[in-house]
């Protein structure tokens, strides 16, 4: 049964956006790119759904990456992920707009919403997809099986929007088109009569124990810290900023930090909002793991250190002198 035949499905292709409050996640750009490609091949509108307590600022980048329309649902209750609200709201919107396809990122929350939505509405569902294509007016979903040795092509046996989750970092995305703009449609959050999940309390992760790959702020140490004792300076700044401590391979090899704190080619790849590189020269093996940080502050005595080439703020100074002052001022400015 093709989407057209069941008479209720429109040619809208939906992407449910993932964001970290003030920025759209990369995976959403990948999904928009894929929807854009499908729309180009067979017509249709690419629509993004943005849910959160303050998502209007995200509309611009969603448009740049391919959304024609953005459904904006802003509500204080959507600040943290609550599957009851998200499933009910997206499901309600779908029942009004009848999209042909609803794409979620196969992340923890995206997969959760996708499965709940498809199950609740009894819509066709394919998890962990890597590709989509048109076949005779219908959308087929492609997902790897058996350890990526086989690809299953999944068609739909029942009517309704095709719901799919997409594996991040597979599709890639094109450069944004800064000239694009999107129509904004505001919608209200839908509170379901019956909650399937009781949402209790949200407890922020302890930056000291948080997986460094998920940290918003990373204060990282390099060989230039000089000694294990000086690592306390890095710990102090991280504590004031509410950030995690990371380091280079050499610092880990020296036993100044545990292996899971290593950033770089053979460690973690981090994309924090702020990366403070302390005494790090910036060998490619390290910068590979942090070059996508939104803001990079580098402190190093060597003016020729390669880290300065990618830093937004370069401080040619001794870390042992700068860090205590920086920590004190951050504390006075209202840090933790």
């Amino acid at each position: 049964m093709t989407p057209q035949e069941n008479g209720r499905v429109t040619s809208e292709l939906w992407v449910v956006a993932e964001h970290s409050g003030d920025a759209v996640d990369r995976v959403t750009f990948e999904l928009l790119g894929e929807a854009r490609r499908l729309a180009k091949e067979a017509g249709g509108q690419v629509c993004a759904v943005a849910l959160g307590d303050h998502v209007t600022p995200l509309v611009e980048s969603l448009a740049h990456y391919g959304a024609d329309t953005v459904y904006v649902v802003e509500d204080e209750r959507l600040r943290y992920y609550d599957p009851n609200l998200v499933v009910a709201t997206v499901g309600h919107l779908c029942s009004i707009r009848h999209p042909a396809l609803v794409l979620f990122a196969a992340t923890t929350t995206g997969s959760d919403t996708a499965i709940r939505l498809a199950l609740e509405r009894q819509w066709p569902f394919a998890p962990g997809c890597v590709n989509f294509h048109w076949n005779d007016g219908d959308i087929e979903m492609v997902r790897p099986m058996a350890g990526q040795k086989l690809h299953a092509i999944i068609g739909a046996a029942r009517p309704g929007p095709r719901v799919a989750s997409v594996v991040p970092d597979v599709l890639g995305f094109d450069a944004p088109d800064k000239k694009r703009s999107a129509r904004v449609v505001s919608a209200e959050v839908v509170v379901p009569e019956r909650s399937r999940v009781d949402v209790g309390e949200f407890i922020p992760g302890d930056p000291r124990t948080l997986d460094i790959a998920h940290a918003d702020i990373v204060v990282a140490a390099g060989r230039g810290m000089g000694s294990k004792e000086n690592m306390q300076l890095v710990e102090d700044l991280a504590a004031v900023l509410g950030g995690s401590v990371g380091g280079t391979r050499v610092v880990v090899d020296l036993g100044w930090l545990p292996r899971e704190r290593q950033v770089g080619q053979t460690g973690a790849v981090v994309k924090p909002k702020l990366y403070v590189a302390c005494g790090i020269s910036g060998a490619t093996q390290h910068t590979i793991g942090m070059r996508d940080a939104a803001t990079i502050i580098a402190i190093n005595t060597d003016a020729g250190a390669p880290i300065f080439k990618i830093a937004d703020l370069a401080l040619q100074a001794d870390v042992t002198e700068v860090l205590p002052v920086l920590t004190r001022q951050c504390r006075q400015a209202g840090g933790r």
Partner: protein
Amino acid sequence: MHDVTREIFGNIPATQQTWFYLLACASLLVFAVGLLRRIARWMSGAADVRIVTRELPRRIAYFLEQVFTQPRLRREPSSGLMHLLIFWGFLILFVGTELVALEHDTPLSFYHGLFYLVASLVLDAFGILMLVGLGIAVHRRYVVRPERIAGGSYGIVLAFLATLGVTGFLLEGFRMTLRGSYWFDWSPGGAVVAALIQASGLDPVTLALSHRCTWWVHAVVTFTFIASIPFTRMLHAITAPLNIFFVPFQPKGTLTTPFRLEQLEAGATLRVAPRVLADLSWKQRLSADACTECGLCQQACPAWASQRPLSPKRIILAVRTHMDHAGGSGWPTPLEKIITPAESWSCTTCRACMEACPVAIEHIDFLVDVRRTLTEQGRVDPNIATTLRNLRRTGNPFGFPPEQRLVWASGLPAGVCVERAQPGAEVEVLYWVGCAGAFDERAQRVARAVASLLSRAGVKFAVLGPEERCTGDPARRLGEEGLFQQLARDNIATLDKYGVRRIVTQCPHCFNTLKNEYPEFGGRYEVVHHTEFIRTLIATGRLSFGTPPAQQSVTYHDSCYLGRHNDVYDAPRAALSALPGVELREMPRHRDKGFCCGAGGANMWFELGLGTKINANRYAEALRTGAQVIATACPFCMTMFDDAASGSAARDTGEAGAQIRDLAEIVNEAITV
């Protein structure tokens, strides 16, 4: 003068002679059955397409050299001498015994006169040499006890050989005492024993009885020994020469090709690697049976030296033990239960084990086979997964966008121009920058040095720029054969599009893959490493050097993929020596015994997290030469040395470390314009 000869079966009654022949037959029967069972177990293995009968003369020549002069064993002088003594002693005594058998059991008659005298002298001499060799062996195995031979089961073999040697001389002494001989000078060993026996003053009856008893001990031990060969480590006398004879004559730096992408695309169902014991090829099975447990591989292994969970000796012995105990069960044990994942990832594919192995076992292929299975099933470290994904998506292991491949060329000195290859445009060489040269900030500086010196030598060269992709070395060595072949195919298409014939590479890994692994996929080019090319430029006078500002001492670190995998040892040393003011110092482990930096076999791209740091070990060795400069020729060695230098304690105490520089940088700096 009566004819000079010796008595055969003297003092042995005819009935006892019959028993002797019956025992001989039984012994040979047991030997044959044991050996045939071994052969059957090799022959039921999978085919090995690399080993073909062409090049037979070369094969025979190699076989003769390896078996009779044992150059690989002689790399380790003390044990090499020990083995040569036992080998040649045993071989000559074996031939001598067969000569006696021919004389006695065939119509031939030659064992007399001068021939007999010379044979006597030679046999005595080699008998003594064998006993000396056995003495060294016992001393090594039970007194010195080097770690590498720990756990070996050679006791019984040594006991057999020593008993045979000693009873042989006793017999000769008895024979000479009983029958008398005018030819003592030609049997010095026997003469000494005979003198001792005479001095003991035994009466003739006791003497005859002692001789007969010794004769029987010698005979029974001989036949037991022969029968036992297929069941003891003495088997190596058969398997080692066989394994050497069937050595695959292919460039050393190549891995096996388990399948071809074209087969896969044609819809064939393929096995990516041997997955269970039964999948091992006949050659791998023979290899495992050929292992002599000498441990030279383990002693050379950087993984072992840094307490990683890998001994190349253990993995081969584990394969053999599993074959021994698998019985007729169809051998379903997964290979990864025999060679563990941790062992396979510990390997840097530096080839030290294979270069050291006296019987030409190919350890790396066993280890990479395990990686192939793990990678196929996605059971890899996240950093390995990232590296493979980067290779797939961006064509380089770092994950940089391919359009940034020429970023390194910004900031070149004035007058140095890097051009992209054009179809039909004649250039002297194509400069293969490699992913490190293109993206790694440190290696970019080396790339600029290479481009500068090419330019200053007047070499017209081009680069592929954004069209260059990783050669596939890390993919292949991480066990992702399909991805390697895709990359190879893409690169070959690009190279052929521009009619490339001659390539200079910056990276020994690119060099090895382009030179040795691409021909199988249709890419045939003349590939040289920058060190070789620079040496030629110096030798032909295209680069000249002025008076240096100061003397500098340099120690050169052999990259495994330039050295052991490709035997490029002299070019880099010649290039450095040609520079005025350079004093070359060697580390203790150099050339074919060079010690890996720790990054090979794609270890550059993941953190094993086990054992100590290989690079710290090597950096310390380099510092001990007192050289001011450590010269490398590989971007990965460079990274490993930089890390080791950065992590060394000396860094904070202000002690003089050493500069770490690529050979191209050192040469480029010395050029006078």
